């Protein structure tokens, strides 16, 4: 059990509850992710992938069922505790990288640590520089987002997702917006991080080539899982 980074039990998600337009998009999902797993989450558009990812990422709450992150039952936590757990245990990489334009690459990586520790410190700067170095972006560390390529920005986003040393990184189509070469190198970067630090990755992708290079493929079809 301690080996589980994530466990879902009977997750359902409905929208417009109590109204004639009520619709259930996830129908009782059970899932476990173990430490160090590298999992692809695939499925057609509208199948409920994003909803599931948001529930796993604690950005959304399930209608029924329980989400355990590192053994914590998140249904018992309040808003602040959820935010804290999300900040410390989960890293996010989005399709459109979403760097904060007002900050440089290095500063974007510092952000999660700064939000947690409030004041900037030597340790935070040091870790951010290490991460920027790790993703091979020393030369653009002080560039703003608009002065970086898509692939570079996505690498910064990965570095930022790793800042708090989360045990789980959720990536929503991280390569969906990149050319083949950049996509490949971004994927490889995540794979390397996964191998080195045993960080669990769950990657939503439409790219079957990439999915096949993952440890496990989970397919969502009509709100149900197909392993």
């Amino acid at each position, binding site marked *: 059990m301690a080996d589980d980074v994530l466990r879902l039990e009977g997750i359902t998600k409905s929208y417009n509850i109590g109204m004639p337009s009520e619709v259930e998009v996830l129908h009782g999902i059970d899932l476990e992710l173990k430490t160090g797993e590298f999992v692809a989450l695939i499925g057609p558009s509208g199948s409920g992938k994003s909803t599931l990812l*948001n529930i796993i*990422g604690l*950005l*959304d709450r399930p209608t029924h069922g329980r989400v355990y992150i590192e053994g914590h039952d998140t249904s018992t936590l309040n*808003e*602040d505790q959820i*935010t*804290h757990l*999300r*900040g*410390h245990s989960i*890293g*996010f990489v*989005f399709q459109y990288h*979403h760097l*904060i*334009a*007002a*900050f440089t690459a290095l*500063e974007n990586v*510092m*952000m*999660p640590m*700064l*939000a*947690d520790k*409030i*004041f*900037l*410190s030597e340790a935070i700067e040091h870790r951010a520089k290490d991460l920027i170095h790790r993703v091979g972006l020393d030369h653009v560390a002080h560039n703003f987002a608009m002065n970086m390529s898509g692939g570079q920005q996505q690498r910064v986003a990965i570095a*930022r997702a790793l*800042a*708090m040393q989360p045990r789980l990184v959720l990536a929503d189509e991280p390569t969906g917006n990149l050319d083949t070469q950049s996509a490949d190198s971004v994927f490889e970067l995540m794979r390397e991080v996964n191998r080195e630090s045993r960080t669990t990755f769950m990657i939503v992708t439409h790219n079957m080539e990439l999915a096949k290079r993952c440890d496990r493929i989970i397919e969502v079809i009509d709100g149900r899982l197909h392993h």
Partner: protein
Amino acid sequence: MNRLLPFDWIVAIRFLREGLFQTLFIIGGIALGVGVIVFMSALLSGMQANFIKRVLTSQPHIQLITLNQVSRPLRFDAGQIEDPVIEQPTQRVTSVDQWPKIITRMRNLPEVIAVSPNVSGSALVVRGDASRAVTMTGIDPETYFKIVRLPDYIVSGEARVTSQDVLIGTELASDLGVKVGDKINLQAGTGATLTLTISAIFDLGSKGTNQRNIYVALRIAQSLLGMIGGVTNIDLSVKDIYAAETLAQEIQASNLVEADSWIKTNAQFFTAIQAQTFANTLIRLTVGLSVAFGIAAVLIVSVIQRSKNIGILRAMGTSRGQIMRVFLIQGGLLGLFGALLGMIMGGGGVIYWHANWRMANGSEMFPLVLEPRMFFITALLATVTGLLAATAPALRAAKLDPVEAING
């Protein structure tokens, strides 16, 4: 990044810097508003202070006079009136009853600064063939000058009031063709006459007063008017000039005198000042509100523009409280910097106006009053306004659902 600033301040300042044009425009808007408020306040309070000073140093704040004499119907017995026709009596000039006691009582009132007994009555000033009817006021200079600052209005001579001296106004002096050191003859209604030396000529700012008022020593007036040991009125100056009417009513209620405050005797002037103050407050309030709406509008737009940023910050573990503070701080900073710039503009405007606009006679239009306290309060108020204006956008930002925010 600054190590001394906490996370929310760093983000707030960066957001302001990133939208630099937006930030500069709204700071310009706030500065204009604050500038107008500072300029108007300084101008109006300076002018008002000037008016009030002129009015209230040339007359008592409260004047106590004898009650009017009234006639009562003649009665036979209880309930039986012999003659129902009552004629109003003529008002003889009489002394305030038990005035030394009233003076002692007035001096003991904490609201009263100075008390001065006077005798006032009509007299004729004669010099050669010219004669003028005047109101002669007998004063005790030591106490009277604390209430009416005659020495401040002397245009020639010195404000000396011994039993040989008389102070006259500029108009009367020119009517009689006299100057300081000349002698004039005074004739009272009682028939008594006396020759006095002009020790000073004053200008109280009003032609009528300068023509019709003369000042002599208290004892001289008492003897000329046949009121040895009596006084016709007691003048007071008080600490809070705007409370003069209330105090006058209290004094009247507890003493056998009629008490008239400057507010009552200058009702029109007082109403004008009140109207001006009201208009000023209304303008300040309106400008303040439009500044607040400006800040709120800019921040609401900023929240919409940055909703993706907010979503990402929330996803990476930033709390609702931190997001809220990011926008509150922006509001506060906009208010503060707008106010600082506005104070420079408004203050500069007042200084320029003061230096370049003069009264017809070349004297300054109003005293230049730029109190540090007013600047401090303005800065504080603008910051608080900024914070309040930012509340709605900040709440909106804090309540954003991260999923919706990220997906736009």
